[in-house]
């Protein structure tokens, strides 16, 4: 698997797409710093952007890579290699190269701007960790979609739909549910609802950092325990990890059953 990871990774590293993403993040970082003139404000803006953008890029790029590297996959399938390692290797290759584009693309301008002397360094690290998690999750979901759909157009369609659902529609439904049942105690429901969507989960992590003052205004005991202690941080990371593991397991399972 590691060998395939290596080759997928190098394959991606020489494809122009990685550079496009790297350049995109680099530009985003520079523009934000330039516009805001303030590191911590740029970090906050970035957080808002990251939790929506990274999943989109992860899904699109994951699906695209899967369909575009069909030849590579076929070549590998012709070799005596385990299927799960072929797909896991490719998946990790994509996810890692995307993560590196993200980390370097955003990291470089911020470091040059004086990140290490700034108090925003923890927020920024959290941002990068969350971004990496989201990349891992959404690339895995993308691979799942691509593995289940031979039709490229359909695959892309589902990928966009998935992103749209998790990034926007889910929260709309979530909000409606909460308002509909507002007479009932909702703090557990709202936390569970958050756990079930990786984008919301990452958002919570960011809320814990940026909006703790507002969150502590709410009375619910479960809420308080969740946001007032490290409990929330730990649970969120555990859930994010589960969100990585489940789709990856499905990649393994699906790839074993599939005909080529």
């Amino acid at each position, binding site marked *: 698997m590691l*060998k*395939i990871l290596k*080759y997928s990774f190098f*394959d991606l590293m*020489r*494809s122009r797409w990685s550079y496009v993403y790297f350049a995109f993040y680099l530009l985003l970082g520079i523009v934000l710093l330039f516009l805001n003139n303030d590191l911590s404000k740029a970090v906050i803006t970035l957080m808002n952007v990251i939790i929506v953008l990274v999943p989109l890029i992860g899904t699109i790029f994951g699906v695209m890579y899967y369909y575009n*590297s*069909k*030849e*590579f996959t*076929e*070549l*590998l*399938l*012709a*070799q*005596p*290699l*385990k299927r799960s390692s072929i797909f896991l290797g490719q998946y990790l290759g994509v996810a890692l190269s995307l993560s590196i584009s993200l980390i370097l693309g955003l990291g470089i301008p911020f470091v040059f701007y004086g990140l290490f002397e700034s108090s925003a360094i923890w927020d920024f690290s959290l941002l990068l960790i969350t971004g990496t998690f989201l990349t891992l999750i959404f690339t895995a979901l993308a691979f799942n979609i691509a593995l289940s759909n031979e039709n490229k157009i359909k695959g892309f369609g589902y990928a966009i739909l998935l992103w749209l659902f998790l990034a926007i529609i889910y929260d709309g439904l979530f909000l409606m549910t909460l308002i509909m049942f507002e007479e009932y105690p909702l703090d557990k429901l709202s936390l569970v609802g958050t756990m079930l969507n990786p984008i919301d989960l990452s958002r919570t992590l960011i809320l814990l950092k940026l909006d703790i003052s507002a969150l502590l205004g709410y009375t619910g005991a479960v809420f308080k325990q969740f946001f007032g202690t490290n409990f929330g941080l730990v649970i969120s990371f555990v859930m994010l990890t589960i969100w990585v593991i489940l789709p990856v397991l499905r990649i393994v399972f699906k790839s074993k*059953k*599939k*005909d*080529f």
Partner: protein
Amino acid sequence: MVSIEGLYKKFGKNHVLSGLDLNINNGGIFAVLGPNGSGKTTLIKSILGMVIPDKGVIHVLGENIKKNPEYRHKIDYLPQIANFPSNLKVKELIKMIKDLRQYTNEEDRLIELFKLTPFLDKKLGNLSGGTKQKVNIVLTFMFNSPLIILDEPTTGLDPISLIRLKDLIQTEKAKGKTILITSHIMSFVEEVSDEIVFLLEGKIYFKGSISELKTKTNQPDFEHAIASILTDNHA
């Protein structure tokens, strides 16, 4: 070498293989023939484990392939369409496959044989179909496995390369290897194969030597023999 019992496979509603039994002995060149969609590639991919059959048991070198995926190391496979990652160089591709499978130094001889030296530093995306196929052949023959499966090996090859391919196949046969070929080029099949397996509607319609086929169909040459099977069955 390969034994297949009661193999079934369908894609959607399309029954590609329906109860196929096949036994291939050690040594010799076997051609798998059949009209388009008769299940040649599916059969080969089933043997390679790339297609998971719905029903049936496949043994390769005495091992049930479902239980032990290690058998794949004893097969050299030439895929039908030579699709390679387009931004890799030929040299890198060869190096990569060696890295992924095992060490070999056979490739130098094969590169020389197919005159690929000038292309080594070119990206695969810039190569012609024929050159890609030559690279494909190098990748397949540089390992020394007892079973070789060639899916349409002649695609895009120029006459000289075709001759070299035939020589190569004969050399491998002389080493006592089993070679499984599918091809549409009847003259090529007639020239190289010892035995043919004719697939029709997901089953073995005929298995035997070319002369046996000629006798059976009562045709003077191989091509007509095949044609007569097809017209008889589609009349």
